[in-house]
Structure formats: structure tokens, C-alpha cells
């Protein structure tokens, strides 16, 4: 592969850094590594990687500062690596502009899947291809953005306007986790209440309409304390 993607890994634990770099290289990515935030930032500025894997707990600077300073000038996808207990940190990082997160410890397949999704999304943004208005399809669920229609196994599902807005927003960003705040802002506008109860209730209703088994969902996944993730669009797999 001549034109393989370059991925920058910023992580202070040497063992984890080595393991990730080895995995990514053996899967055909070019890797650049950095053990500190400072050198990571200068690599981003000089080499413009295609994707950044960023550990939030760096010794020399706050991971969130890196995200906000990178977001000032590039939309290069950032995947945050964080510890399990800190939902607040994840939400903060996502709201600052990180694209996705992965929780330590993670398996290689999970890591690769997240990277693929994020790269695909960034490509789509860059090329502005007609993909965006192609219907969303996943395991029998279809969402036609032009007709504003949702069908499951060919049968039409009636959603209220608000429910449709939520589903449309999530499926346009399928595969990525969307925080409560970002869904609220997109559906109800920027000046909504910070209480997300109304979103939860709407989601519960949507799940009852779309999911074949609401307690073991196939399409709409909850990341408790963070937000929602919609099953990846089959068109893009």
C-alpha cells in the first residue's frame, strides 16, 4: 500500500504505545508515536496525520487542551483513549470535538473498528460525496433522507417529527457515539434545557417502534452516561 493512512498515537505508557503501534502497522497503517502532549502537538502541526489516537491522561498536559488546540485549524479525526470510570471526561472530550472514544482496556478488533469508522466519516466530509443523501441501511432498517421515511423489513414506521429528527441525526453519524448534548442541540436547538430527560423518553419511544426487542437493541445503542451510538450504515461497511 503506497497511500496508507498515517496515524499518530499519543500515549505515555510505553507498553500500550508499543502494542498499539505494532497492531496498527501489521494492519497496514503508518504510525507515528509520541509519549508527551507537547511533542504530539508539534507532530500534528508538522506532519498532519490522518487520524489521532489520544490518551487523555498525559503527564505533561491535559488531553482536552490538545483537542481544543487541534480543532482550531483541522478536522482531522481524534479518537480519545480513556479509563472506564470517567464518563465526565469522555463527554467533555467529545463535546470539545473528539470524534469517538475507546475505553481501556480494549481489544485490537475494537480499536481497528473505531479507526475505520472515524476515517470513513472524515473522508465523507472531505469529499462531500452524494453518499450523504443515500438512504441509511442496516439489518432491515432503512431511512430515506429525501422522503423522510423510515422502514423496517419494508414496513413503514411512523415516527413523530422529533423522533425522526433524532433518528436522522444519529444515522447520519452512524457508528459514532453522539453525546446527549450534541443530540439535544441538533434536535431542539442550541438553547435547550440541560436536562436530557425529554431525549431519554423520546429514545425509549423510538426503540419501542424500531427495535424488534427493545431491551436487546440491534440499531440504537446506549453508552450509559455518555450518549447514543447508531449501528454502522451497511452501505459503508
Amino acid at each position, binding site marked *: 500500500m503506497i497511500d496508507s493512512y498515517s496515524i499518530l498515537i499519543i500515549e505515555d505508557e510505553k507498553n500500550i504505545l508499543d502494542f498499539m503501534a505494532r497492531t496498527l502497522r501489521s494492519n497496514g497503517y503508518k504510525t507515528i508515536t509520541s509519549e508527551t502532549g507537547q511533542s504530539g502537538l508539534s507532530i500534528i502541526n508538522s506532519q498532519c496525520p490522518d487520524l489521532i489516537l489520544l490518551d487523555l491522561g498525559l503527564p505533561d498536559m491535559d488531553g482536552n487542551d490538545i483537542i481544543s488546540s487541534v480543532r482550531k485549524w483541522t478536522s482531522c479525526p481524534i479518537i480519545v483513549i480513556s479509563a*472506564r*470510570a470517567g*464518563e465526565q471526561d469522555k463527554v467533555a472530550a467529545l463535546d470539545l470535538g473528539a470524534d469517538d472514544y475507546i475505553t481501556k*482496556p480494549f481489544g485490537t478488533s475494537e480499536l481497528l473498528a473505531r479507526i475505520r469508522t472515524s476515517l470513513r466519516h472524515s473522508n465523507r466530509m472531505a469529499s462531500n460525496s452524494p453518499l450523504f443523501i443515500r438512504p441509511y441501511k442496516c439489518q432491515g432498517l432503512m431511512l430515506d433522507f429525501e422522503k423522510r421515511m423510515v422502514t423496517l423489513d419494508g414496513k413503514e414506521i411512523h415516527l413523530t417529527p422529533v423522533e425522526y429528527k433524532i433518528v436522522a441525526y444519529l444515522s447520519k453519524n452512524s457508528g459514532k457515539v453522539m453525546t446527549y448534548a450534541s443530540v439535544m442541540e441538533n434536535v431542539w436547538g442550541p438553547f435547550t434545557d440541560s436536562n436530557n*430527560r425529554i431525549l*431519554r*423518553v423520546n*429514545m*425509549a*419511544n423510538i*426503540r419501542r417502534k424500531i427495535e424488534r*426487542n*427493545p*431491551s*436487546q*437493541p440491534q440499531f440504537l*445503542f*446506549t*453508552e*450509559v*452516561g455518555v450518549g447514543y451510538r447508531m449501528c454502522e450504515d451497511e452501505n459503508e461497511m
Partner: protein
Amino acid sequence: MKHTAPTTTLESRTLWHNIVSTIIILAIATILAFSFFHITQSDPANIALIYILALIIIARITTGYFFGIISAFFCVIFINWCFTYPYFKVSFAISGYPVTFVFLLTISMIVSTLTTRLKKQDKMILDRERAINEADKERIRANLLRAISHDLRTPLTSIIGSSDSFTENYAALSDQEKLDLVSSINEDSHWLLNMVENLLSITRIQGDTGRVRKEDELVEEVVSEAITRIKKRIPDIEIHVTAPDNILIIPMDPLLIEQVLMNLIENAFVHSETNRPVELQISEESDTLTFHVIDYGKGIDEQTIPLILKGEYHVPKTSDTHRGMGIGLSICNTIVQAHGGQISAHNHAHGAEFLFTLPKGDI
């Protein structure tokens, strides 16, 4: 050094409290005595009774002897000054007055002594109870630590052994053997991770109050995430969920309840020794929600369950050390209790059932 300042403020606060309450009670007694004296024009004996009552109250609510005795002096002189002839003059010449004086003083001293002793005893009892509580907590913590170290050692031994034999005998091992070694390392590290996550979850419970930070959560989201995570770890597990159709939103710490569900479901799968699906039933009562985890396996020993839940159960030496069911369950118990709920377990006709409740409203 750090403690000096708060203690002095505390002392000055009790001092002020004592002075103020003494003055208030004496004032009330005086007002009562005056109105009594004017309405009935009776002799000062009844007035002395009013003051005796006031003295008893003062001795009860102030600390130490000092205020009781001061008040006794005040009463004696005040009665003399106001309520006995000659009015508004202090005179010790009235017949029997020295007797009243001595009596009032003695009563006040005795009551002060008694109440002071009573207060000391109350404090001692409280202190002793606190010490017993503390010792109890300490014992549970020590038990947990002992069980954890024992449980952690087993997978670590296997990980260290497998990786050692991998590096030392690399050339001699067949590909299959290498694969086996690495997958057993992988399996054991997953088990360790599970244990660590359980332990971490306990740190989310606030130490001193034993309470958790609750937020309104949709029950089905917590349940579905628990199931998704457990399926990631045990792909062939089958779980049937039945829940009420309405939308259930109750206050909880979602990560902790997820941990409880995962522990119970995993226990049901591992310890029932059967392939029949695990059932998760959610039922709604007037002010609680109950989660039932039901398996169709060999059942449980009902005698040991309360001990396991309390974290007092010691694994018999013969039982297989894998899979310390004890820690997981005692952590479930801690979490559910911190939410103000109850956890229990019993056998049904074809297996075991673990159930826990969560209150619907905030408590």
C-alpha cells in the same frame, strides 16, 4: 495545630448557648412568677416552686455545674428582692428564709451533678457504639481484602506461568501449544479485568455516608448496556428479558447497577452449570422496581447465601478457587444497599433466583 481553631469556636459556641438559654429560662420564670404573684397574691412558696422548675431545666440543658449554681444564687436573691416582704429590698431577716436559700442551692447542685453525669454517660455510650461500628467496617474490609488477594493470585499465577513457559520453551512448543498458552493468558486477564472493575465500582460509593450519586436513568438502557457488555465477554450466553411495557425512569448510578446486573447474570451462567438461558425479569411495585435474575440450573446453597452477601463467607479449602463468586455478590450487596434497596436469593423449583429492589423515588 489544625484542630485548635474549630475546637475553640465550638467551645465558645456552647458557652454562648449556655448563657443565652440560662437568661431566657430565668426571664420566662420571672415573667411567670410576676404574673402569678399579681393575679393570685399568694405567698412566695409557689413562686419558689416556679424557680425550682426553672433551675432544673437550666441544669439539664447547660453543660457543667456553673450555670446551675449561678442561677440558684440569682433565684434566691431575686425571690428575696421581689416577692417577699419588704418588697424590692434584700433582707435575710425573714423567718425561714435561710432554709429556702439552702434548699434551692442544694436542689440546683444535685440536679446539675445528676444531669452532667447523665450527659457523660450518653456520650460514652455513643462513643462505644461508634467504635463498635468502626471495628465492624474494619473487619468487613479486612475480609474483603483477604478474599481479593486470594482470588487475584490464582489468575496471576496462571498468567505468569504461561508467559514464562512461552518465552522459555519457545522453540520446543508446537504452534497449538503456543496458541493455548496465549489464549489462557488472555482468558485470565479478562477475568482479572472483571475483578478490577468490580473493585473500582466500590470506590464510586462515597466512603463516609455510604451513598451514591444518583441520576434519573432509563432502566432499559442500563439493562441493554449490561447485556451488551456481558455478551462481549461471554459470546454464547443467552439472556431472556421481560420488562413492563411502560417507560421506567428511576434514580440510580447507572454504572453501578450495570455492574450488579452483570455480576448476577454472569454468576447465573457460570454457577448454574446448564446451557438453558438466563432470565432477567423486571417487575414494578408501587414504590420499588425489582430485578429478578433466574437460572434453571443446580440451585444454590441457601444457608451460605446471606453470608456471601455480607462478605463473611470463607471459601472452603476444597472448592475450586476459580471464580470467586463471593466478592462479586458482596459487591452487589454493597451497591444495592447504597441505593436504598434490598438483595436476596432463594431456590425455585428448577434452579436459583437472585433478586434486588431499587426504590423509585429518591430517598
